[in-house]
């Protein structure tokens, strides 16, 4: 499958935006890249964009050497301008900063590089495709979404993915396909089918169906046909839409149906069609002219369309289904499962934005470029940038303020406004705050597990240099058992002494957690609250007992936690998952994970996932 992607992309790199190639550096990836290079017409520029490239190298800027020797400003082209008409390869795309991704996205959108830098104002047409080399392994290591949205293909290279029928493309096939590409037509049925498939798979961005159509067109061009046929549409759906799926089509999600392979094999056309029709009617967003309230014989068409014969209508429906089926079959394993745990926490964490996760720092961290400013308050002077800033003005300044004739060397005129300081980026530390329900209802079942999980996480913290804190609540109060620490021995000691029993002051516990999380935030660290409870509070904020008041208070406290923008995770520790706990998680904006009989290992794994997503 992946070699088809190479061929399609070689036909129209600019129109398709590119591909995100998820694989470690491996012979497999090299093979794909060399195939892709072979297919591109000779002389096509191929440039590599290193991680942490600066703006001058990426977009272009003033060529200082040439400028000084020529005595007039001379622009220097960046990597993007050099790659015009070709392809750029983005190394370690999963770690690319959002800013770089956004610059690349702008170039893909407008097909030009806009340079407004160093006294230059230039617009260079740049048409290119991007090969994002994604070396991410965990689910939270992803290419920035802004960039992914503009790449047609998301490919995960796997060693035994050799189901290619047509892997013998030659460069001349590509050249021919490029020639006929502008003349290829797409029928409305295909457009409709691809749009419907995108909708059914929960692919929201409208770029996806547009890319699918372009991909289908390229597929037709590769086949030397001037019309896009059903096979091309199905291929496009498989390659472009399936990897972006966020839900299964309602057919599978809502009802218990036999697995898809059985469906396709045993029953022929009629049954699956009936089914999906029925289910499309259930789907809220389904279109009136597509869903099931029309009988198959008497299609109820919108009045503005010319009444086509039944044959054509059924044909277009059949196409829509086959496209959807193709896409569905290609949804990678585990994609949806990963979405369930990871996504909820991730969306919130990203929404919290720059404030918590990544901090700009003046003094330490990874260098992140320079900015104009004076070296004050511990920020460091960037000598190179300062000299660069001063260089163009030398002649002018020399004239205004000549070097004394008796001086041995010519003076370099550096002025205050030339000063540049280095900026650093620092990922802030994560502090995982465990809020453990030690009340009578929970203690029996789960306290030991919670203790075990915390200990496992602590062991992990030595590697990740994160902190852990533990808050326990029982009776009428919440007690900070363990202030944020990295000390394993201390944590173990305080956990071992945690007694169980008493009421469940849930509201008080959440309040205490929020206060502590606020403190952590103010220190510039990122807090994650992990609440282990069964969600059945029975002590109100004021210490009085009574379930109704307690539940009310708990949900208020939960909402406040959410509004404070704190990433949270609620592990339901009761033997049977509780509605109350799930509702509480929702109010808290927390990911809800029921853990009926999980051990310490499972708890620790879930928490690690959430904290990784929060970064």
């Amino acid at each position, binding site marked *: 499958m992946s070699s088809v992607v190479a061929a399609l992309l070689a*036909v*129209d790199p600019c*129109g398709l935006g590119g591909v995100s190639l998820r694989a470690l550096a491996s012979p497999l990836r090299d093979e794909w890249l060399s195939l892709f290079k072979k297919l591109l*017409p*000779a*002389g096509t520029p191929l440039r590599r964009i290193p991680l942490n490239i600066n703006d001058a190298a990426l*977009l272009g800027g*003033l060529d200082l050497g040439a*400028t000084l020797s020529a005595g*007039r*400003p001379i622009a220097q082209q960046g990597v993007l301008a050099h790659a*015009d008409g*070709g392809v750029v390869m983005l190394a370690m795309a999963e770690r690319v900063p*959002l*800013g770089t991704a*956004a610059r690349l*996205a702008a170039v893909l*959108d*407008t*097909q030009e590089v*806009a340079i*407004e*830098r*160093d*006294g230059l*104002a230039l617009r260079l047409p740049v*048409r290119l495709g991007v090969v994002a080399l994604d070396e991410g392994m965990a689910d939270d290591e992803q290419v920035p979404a*802004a960039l992914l949205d503009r790449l047609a293909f998301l490919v995960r290279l796997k060693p035994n993915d050799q189901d290619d029928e047509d892997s013998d493309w030659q460069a001349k096939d590509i050249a021919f396909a*490029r*020639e006929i*590409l*502008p003349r290829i037509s797409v029928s409305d049925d295909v457009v*409709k089918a691809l*749009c419907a498939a995108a909708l059914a798979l929960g692919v*929201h*961005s*409208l*770029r*996806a*169906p*547009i890319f699918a*159509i372009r991909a289908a067109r390229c597929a037709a061009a590769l086949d030397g046909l001037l019309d896009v046929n059903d096979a091309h549409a199905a291929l496009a759906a498989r390659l472009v839409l399936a990897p972006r799926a966020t839900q299964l089509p309602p057919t599978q999600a809502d009802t218990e149906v036999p697995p898809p392979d059985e469906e396709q094999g045993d029953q022929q056309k009629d049954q699956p069609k009936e089914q999906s029709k029925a289910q499309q009617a259930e789907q809220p*967003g389904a*279109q009136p002219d*597509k869903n099931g309230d029309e009988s198959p014989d008497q299609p109820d068409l919108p009045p503005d369309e010319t009444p086509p014969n039944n044959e054509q209508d059924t044909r277009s429906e059949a196409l829509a289904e086959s496209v959807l089926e193709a896409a569905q079959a290609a949804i990678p394993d585990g994609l949806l499962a990963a979405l369930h745990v990871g996504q909820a926490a991730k*969306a919130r964490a*990203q*929404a919290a*934005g*720059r404030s918590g996760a990544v901090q*700009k720092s003046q003094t330490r961290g990874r260098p992140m470029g320079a*900015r*104009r400013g004076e070296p004050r308050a511990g920020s460091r002077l960037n000598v190179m940038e300062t000299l660069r800033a001063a260089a*163009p003005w030398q*002649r002018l300044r020399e*004239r205004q303020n000549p070097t004394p004739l008796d001086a041995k060397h010519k003076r370099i005129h550096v002025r205050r*406004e030339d000063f540049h300081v280095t900026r650093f980026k620092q990922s802030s530390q994560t502090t995982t705050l465990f809020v453990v329900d030690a009340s009578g209802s929970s203690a029996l079942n789960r306290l030991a597990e919670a203790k075990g999980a915390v200990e496992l996480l602590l062991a992990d913290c030595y590697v990740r240099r994160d902190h852990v804190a533990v808050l326990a609540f029982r009776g009428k109060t919440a007690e900070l058992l363990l202030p944020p620490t990295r000390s394993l021995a201390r944590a173990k000691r305080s956990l071992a002494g945690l007694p169980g029993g008493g009421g469940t002051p849930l509201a008080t516990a959440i309040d205490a957690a929020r206060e502590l999380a606020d403190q952590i935030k103010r220190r510039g660290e990122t807090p994650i609250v992990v609440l282990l409870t069964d969600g059945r509070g029975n002590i109100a904020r004021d210490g009085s007992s009574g379930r109704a008041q307690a539940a009310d208070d708990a949900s*208020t406290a939960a*909402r406040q936690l959410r*509004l404070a923008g704190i990433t949270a995770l609620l592990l339901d520790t009761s033997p049977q998952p509780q509605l109350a706990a799930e509702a509480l998680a929702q109010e808290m904006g927390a990911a809800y994970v029921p853990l009926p009989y999980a051990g310490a290992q499972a708890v620790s794994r879930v928490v690690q996932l959430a904290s990784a997503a929060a970064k």
Partner: protein
Amino acid sequence: MPCVQPQYTLSTMAIAFPFSAIVGQDEMKLAILIAAVDPAIGGILVFGDRGTGKSTAVRALAALLPKMRAVVGCAYNSDPAHPFVPEGSPSSQSSPKSPVKSHLISVPVVDLPLGATEDRVVGALDLERALSQGVKAFEPGLLARANRGFLYIDEVNLLEDHLVDLLIDVAASGENVVEREGLSVRHPARFVLVGSGNPEEGELRPQLLDRFGLSVEVKTPTDLAGRVEVVKRRDAFERDPTVFTEQWKKEDEKIRKRIVAGRTRLPAVLISDAARERAAQLCMALGTDGLRGDLTLIRAARAYAALQGDAAVTDVHFKRIAAPALRHRLRRNPLDDSGSTVRVDRAVAELMGA
């Protein structure tokens, strides 16, 4: 470059997608039209899902807006009625009474690309002349070019902090003051600030948020027919931009006439004291910070009324405009976590009835 590119990708960059061909996104389009009628509205913020045509709509503006009259050769697009003459420039010595030459130009829609440096945004010493002739001269930047037009920042939440500071200052004062490299220049920089972005990539500073008069939320359409239409039009445009633009020319022309009519009607639209009170009540009910909410609400309602051809501002206009004018000015209420749009709608319904 030696490699052959498919035809349709070659021509897309030159021609912008026609404004009238954008499917749906009514709130965004309305906000843009309101700013076109009354640029004093103070900017539009478009936040929302990816692939919804945020940039497309803004980039379509230049072709849509009626042309304006400007002084020939003026780097600041200044109005011939009040020409701006930089201090110390040779033309300031000539007789002020001599008529200035003017011509019709497209309203500038200036892109502020990410990665722009400060010197290009505010303007700086003219490098060329400094290097070759040793002359100190000011070269106007993007803010000058955007004067009387639109300044567009895609991915506004990724903009460098020091540029944000600059913009906040200039957007409030309408004047760009440059004090650098031994230059001291001030020039008008009145523009409609248009920002777009995706909230997942970071939030905006409240100070910058406040500079935007209207804030629009865009979502991807979820109905199949709408989505098919978007995709079809985009495809048709890419295959032959010239023909496609030609097809939508009439629709664009209609919108243009609406803008022109709205502009002429704008000063005559009546705002009764009762309407002003209404706006104040609404802002008080929502507890918006400062008076900018009131002012924007009234201004936007007036522009909307002018656009609709109505003679006076009424509740109908407030209802339509309240959400974009106020939703980004709400304080977070710890006991009410519903979205700000819902809160505005609720307040409107309480005050004016559903």
